[in-house]
């Protein structure tokens, strides 16, 4: 069942490279799309259609002056962006991308954990340490305030997220993402659909907040709060934070697809077009992720940022309850109807 260790290493390496390359081109896609939303063109100067823009950005980020604030706690200051990016990358490894042995005889995942759901939630939560330590180590009161704000936000929205996941876990009876996908939570009973739909919406909102995207992008808030915890960060360390954010976006999109939309599986009618098409590895997961990423960008183009008190009120007074309601509804259906 499991691949030899060297295959896993190669897969992990490829996944990391794909994620980082994806991040680079995601910035371009996002800027082009936001440009289109605002009747602009977006970056199109570097290379054809601006395709070399990410490379130019990377060169710029690496060669910019790397300022280490003299009053900063140097070790933590340097470590914090690393924590963010490493745990963002590590989290993605548990996402399955196809049926077993479908990727040239190898399993299309890096790890198939029996606690996959918990693992992803845990790893994305550790990312908060990157944010918090970054703000703390900068030794700037504004960075510290920003990091406190961001940590509070992410921790608050994790509650709603966890409760929303609970419905899926109860239906599936497993925390193994691969088994959840193969089970297909929607196929069990139509009675479960209301709970799942509510959980899906709650999870989508909480996921948007978790990855600090508009309208919940208070951690960044370039315009009014001057990027909160990243205020003192420059050059490649700042780029690492950005990287972590975009990789978290990929993870979030993949996690939502895997939990609620059948992950790497496509609807059965695709098998009528080409037999076996619905279980092609990677393709469907990427398509679903693309849909969610487009949705995130679309949200960014549409909504304004929430105020901090609105953010917390929404997280604790609405999202928490919605998630709880979905979990109770699903639990009641499982207990009394099925």
């Amino acid at each position, binding site marked *: 069942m499991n691949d030899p260790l060297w295959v896993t290493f190669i897969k992990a390496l490829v996944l990391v490279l794909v994620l980082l390359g994806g991040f680079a081109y995601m910035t371009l896609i996002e800027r082009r*799309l936001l440009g289109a939303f605002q*009747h602009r063109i977006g970056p199109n100067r570097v290379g054809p259609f601006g395709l070399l823009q990410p490379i130019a950005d990377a060169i710029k980020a690496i060669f910019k002056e790397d300022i280490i604030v003299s009053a900063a706690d140097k070790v933590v200051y340097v470590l914090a962006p690393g924590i963010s990016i490493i745990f963002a990358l590590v989290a993605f490894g548990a996402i399955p991308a196809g049926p077993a042995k479908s990727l040239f005889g190898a399993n299309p995942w890096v790890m198939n954990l029996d606690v996959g759901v918990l693992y992803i939630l845990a790893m994305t939560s550790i990312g908060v340490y990157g944010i918090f330590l970054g703000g703390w180590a900068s030794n700037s009161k504004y960075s510290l305030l920003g990091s406190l704000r961001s940590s509070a936000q992410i921790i608050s929205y994790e509650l709603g997220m966890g409760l929303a996941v609970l419905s899926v876990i109860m239906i599936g009876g497993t925390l193994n993402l691969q088994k959840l996908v193969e089970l297909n939570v929607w196929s069990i009973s139509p009675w479960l659909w209301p709970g799942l739909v509510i959980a899906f919406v709650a999870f989508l909102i909480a996921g948007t907040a978790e990855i600090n995207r508009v309208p919940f992008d208070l951690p960044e808030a370039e315009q009014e709060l001057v990027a909160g915890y990243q205020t003192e960060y420059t050059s490649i360390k700042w780029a690492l934070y950005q990287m972590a954010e975009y990789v978290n976006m990929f993870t979030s999109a993949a996690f939502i697809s895997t939990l609620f939309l059948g992950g790497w599986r496509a609807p059965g009618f695709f098998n009528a077009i080409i037999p076996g098409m619905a279980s092609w590895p990677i393709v469907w997961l990427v398509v679903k992720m693309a849909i969610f990423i487009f949705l995130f960008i*679309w*949200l960014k183009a549409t*909504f304004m940022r929430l105020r901090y008190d609105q953010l917390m009120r929404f997280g604790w007074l609405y999202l928490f309850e919605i998630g709880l309601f979905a979990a109770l509804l699903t639990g009641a259906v499982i207990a009394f109807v099925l």
Partner: protein
Amino acid sequence: MSVLDMAKGMGVTLGHLFKRPVTVRYPEQRAQVKARFRGRHHLLRHPDTGLEKCIGCSLCAAACPAYAIYVEAAENDPDNPTSAGERYAKIYEINMLRCIFCGFCEEACPTGAVVLGHEFELADYRYQDFVYAKPDMLVGTKGSKWQRREAERKGKEVRLGFEAGPRPELEGVDY
């Protein structure tokens, strides 16, 4: 903000996604400049005689809030006059780095000799290249110093990156 309103907002932005961008791809496409845009100065001549309008009175330099103008006047040679008046500007320099393009020189000029045109592509490399002398501004000169230098180097005509409405005092006059 109800969910319906939010959906409506999303619909609005999605509609805008498919509209044509309004961006002018400036160096390739030409920018549109309004008729009263204030750009680089032109020194005019009388259309009929071809004599310079500038009489070297230095009123523009006096009016200039940025002290960007330097004028040195000289007596006209009666047989071969340079300007229509008694005197003419032997040296007329404007420092384009100091100039704020306010148009006060244009207003102060008693003969209407200095006029702010449409050219705005004045970028250059060295400080001294921003001091525009008479040959750089006399009417009929097209382009900034750098543009003319580049055009000469490449053997091409000066290409201005903008289009503007008509300026009768600058156009349609042959000298």
